[in-house]
């Protein structure tokens, strides 16, 4: 128990390090020639990194039978949301300087901004329903709702690709990692469907019961 607590505190501090580095850089003037850009790029990258790490939890459990990682998933996901919030805030303050009319027009008009905004908005209900109370209240629907993270991650990667002038290097790497992580789920779902008896009635076609549903439920943070 103590070890688990300690590991969570350690992870929390570790996950906060990029933000701390940015704050320190702001105070010491060490964020490069264009500090605003450094803040925007770093918060965006860390939001995406945490999203991918969060999405890696289930594959790591399945492949390595390393179930202990599930207890960190909520914190990792919330850190993705934390960095996405900072990233969005940097857009509001550093790019648009609170010009809300211009922002609305920007989001509506430019696909690059639209998908970035979508990635962020899709994370909102996930962050809000990450508490024990909401997990209990939503029951089975919680799992369903939290599949939005897949859509959010796809939007985030597309946002990154559309942001750069040349699609080489990091955006391609991030997209590749996401494809592997989502591909893992697709393969598992297809396999599970093929091996499951055909008589079983599903709640809905869009919401196939994932094999790990019960396991996830019982392993939710106590």
């Amino acid at each position, binding site marked *: 128990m103590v070890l688990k607590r300690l590991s969570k505190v350690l992870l929390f501090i570790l996950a906060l390090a990029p933000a701390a580095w940015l704050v320190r850089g702001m105070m010491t003037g060490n964020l*490069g020639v264009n500090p*605003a850009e450094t803040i925007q790029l770093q918060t965006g990258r860390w939001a995406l990194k945490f999203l991918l790490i969060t999405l890696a939890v289930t594959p790591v459990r399945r492949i390595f039978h390393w179930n202990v990682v599930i207890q960190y998933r909520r914190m990792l996901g919330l850190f993705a949301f934390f960095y996405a919030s900072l990233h969005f805030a940097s857009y509001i303050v550093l790019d648009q300087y609170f010009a809300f009319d211009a922002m609305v027009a920007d989001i509506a008009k*430019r696909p690059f*901004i639209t998908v970035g905004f979508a990635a962020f908005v899709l994370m909102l209900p996930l962050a809000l329903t990450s508490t024990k109370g909401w997990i209990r209240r939503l029951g089975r629907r919680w799992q369903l709702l939290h599949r939005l993270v897949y859509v959010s991650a796809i939007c985030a990667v597309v946002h990154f690709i559309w942001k750069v*002038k*040349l699609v080489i290097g990091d955006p391609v790497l991030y997209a590749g990692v996401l494809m592997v992580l989502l591909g893992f789920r697709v393969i598992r779902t297809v396999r599970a469907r093929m091996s499951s008896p055909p008589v079983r009635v599903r709640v809905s076609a869009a919401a196939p019961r994932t094999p790990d549903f019960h396991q996830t439920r019982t392993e939710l943070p106590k």
Partner: protein
Amino acid sequence: MLIKKPSDIPSSEITDERWYLKRRDFLRVTGGAVLGAAAAVAACGSGTSAESLESAAPAGPTAGVPIGNISKRVVTTNEPLNAFQEITNYNNFYEFGTGKSDPARYAGRMTTRPWTIKVDGLCNKPAEYHIEDLLQSNEIEERVYRFRCVEAWSMVIPWDGIPLASVLKRAEPTSKATFVEFTTLARSSEMPGLSEGGLNWPYREGLRMDEAMHPLTLLAVGLYGKTLLNQNGAPLRLVVPWKYGFKSIKSIVQIRFVDKMPHTAWNDENSGEYGFYSNVNPNVDHPRWSQATERRIPSYFKTTKTLMFNGYADQVASMYSGMDLRKWY
């Protein structure tokens, strides 16, 4: 002369005082040596013939060396200059990588001596110049210009250079020459970005003849009174202050007179986003972001209003009268 020269601005207000004092020291201490070396090279050839290629390039560092023969100063804005450190550490030079600090990190390996610039195409006097000959046979002017990147950041930069027109006129372009094409060095052994793909190398840019001949158009060889560092496009680059920065092609090896609108690297890559003209225009947005405002380095906020033709409208707008600038972005 169309260039505005606000004489009411004291120079101390515009130029960093430390540099101003240093410049004199440099002139006194090292200027003579540099001039001597350059003169020795110039003496080996006529300056306009291919023979000059035979002359030996001087040994030693050639970037960041004080320029001795700066003859006049043209200031087009009274906004504060960006620091040398800012101008030399935040660059787009994709031959060295796509990160803003990649050029400062990797461009040092580019060999800039010997360096020849071929001027050819539709002209009566094609020539190949040694960079030293160009430096020596022309008066170098200081030009303080605004520099506006298509990515919506901007700086104010004190370039040192030669009006492009004076180099072009010497080649005597024929009446058929309607455009000028510029080409950057493409040497994969020294440019790690080339193997990463991306743009269709070598980097190419182009100007319409009247744009190329415009008195604001500069062939820059230095900034802040010193020869260009490699990351800024040493030893010779274009500066077209009313156009987005990518038009100001770096490390030029060839200038060619042509009769058709030349292919340009970014237009080839994405013609929907980067037009041939690419004049700074706050009313025509980039498809992915607004061009109405810019972030003046090192400000945190993107609140500086972008000016039509980057503030040079009264000098250049007439070249585009009657053109639909939305169509010809």
